[in-house]
């Protein structure tokens, strides 16, 4: 018998993650680990992981890792990449980290066209702190701090930060994918591959936003969570390539 799915080289062996059942982080972690291997960048990669559920990502990724303060990932990544342009640098951030407390760092690193890749997990809530409202929370979505559902009159509208940065000239590749089933896995892997290749080719900044399940804080089963992404989240956040300037740069 031959094993068809080898354990990814850059994923630590036989760990059981702290993520809840059905959490999208595990799937994205595996995809990233596979791509680091397939694209042969794992040896020179540094991942900046966030404060949030993925704060312990260094227990899973078997590459050099730097933990960031909440929201500061792209500033740290900027420091790494500027000091060592030969390294492959990516951040892994959630929606609270990237689009609330780290908005300034996100926007300015993108606008400077830093040669980094941002993996952006959008699950429309603060996960690790227990399901509070995020900038990305959908209108009407109930969270612990919007118990009656997000009301735009009080709490504003869902923030489309990836659409925003995609308008910047320094952002070479931006895509939003919906991790809502097997096809979503394939699309996510393809998008991250394009984003990584953008950096490998020395073209500039790339970002992939992944609509990702948080069954625990959504108070749904994992299977229902995947349906909710497909039926509700994608209505607010349309998946697709938001900008692709790779052709202009080459």
């Amino acid at each position, binding site marked *: 018998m031959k094993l*068809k*799915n080898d354990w*990814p080289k850059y994923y630590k062996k036989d760990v059981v993650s702290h993520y809840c*059942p059905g959490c999208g982080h595990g799937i994205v972690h595996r995809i990233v680990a596979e791509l680091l291997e397939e694209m042969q960048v794992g040896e020179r990669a540094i991942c900046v992981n966030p404060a949030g559920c993925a704060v312990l990502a260094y227990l899973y990724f078997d590459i050099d890792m730097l933990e960031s303060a909440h929201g500061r990932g792209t500033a740290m990544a900027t420091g790494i990449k500027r000091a060592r342009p030969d390294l492959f640098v990516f951040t892994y951030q959630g929606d609270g980290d990237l689009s609330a407390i780290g908005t300034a760092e996100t926007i300015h690193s993108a606008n400077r066209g830093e040669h980094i890749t941002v993996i952006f997990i959008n699950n429309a809530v603060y996960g690790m702190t227990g399901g509070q409202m995020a900038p990305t929370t959908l209108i009407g979505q109930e969270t612990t701090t919007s118990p009656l559902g997000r009301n735009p009159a009080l709490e504003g509208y869902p923030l489309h930060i990836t659409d925003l940065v995609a308008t910047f000239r320094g952002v070479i590749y931006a895509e939003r994918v919906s991790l809502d089933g097997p096809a979503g896995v394939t699309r996510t892997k393809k998008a991250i591959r394009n984003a990584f290749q953008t950096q490998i080719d020395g073209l500039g900044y790339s970002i992939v936003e992944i609509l990702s399940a948080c069954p625990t804080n959504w108070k749904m089963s994992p299977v229902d969570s995947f349906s909710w992404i497909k039926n509700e989240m994608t209505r607010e956040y349309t998946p697709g390539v938001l900008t692709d300037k790779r052709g202009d740069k080459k």
Partner: protein
Amino acid sequence: MAQKTGKCTVMVKSESCKGCSLCIEFCKSGKLVLSDKLNKMGYRYAEPVEDTACTGCMICTSICPDLVIEVYDE
């Protein structure tokens, strides 16, 4: 635990499985079910069904957030 049928063999590392059931939901062959037993973490885990063919499509391994599924060619 290995269950052999048809073309491929599916194995689930039951002690690492959190029972999220995504593999069960998306498997087109109905090869996986949730066990009645609990693992040490207290989860009902996914397990392969005997006498159901696995086509080796790898959807279960691609959707599993915990890397607990292994698929083998015959």
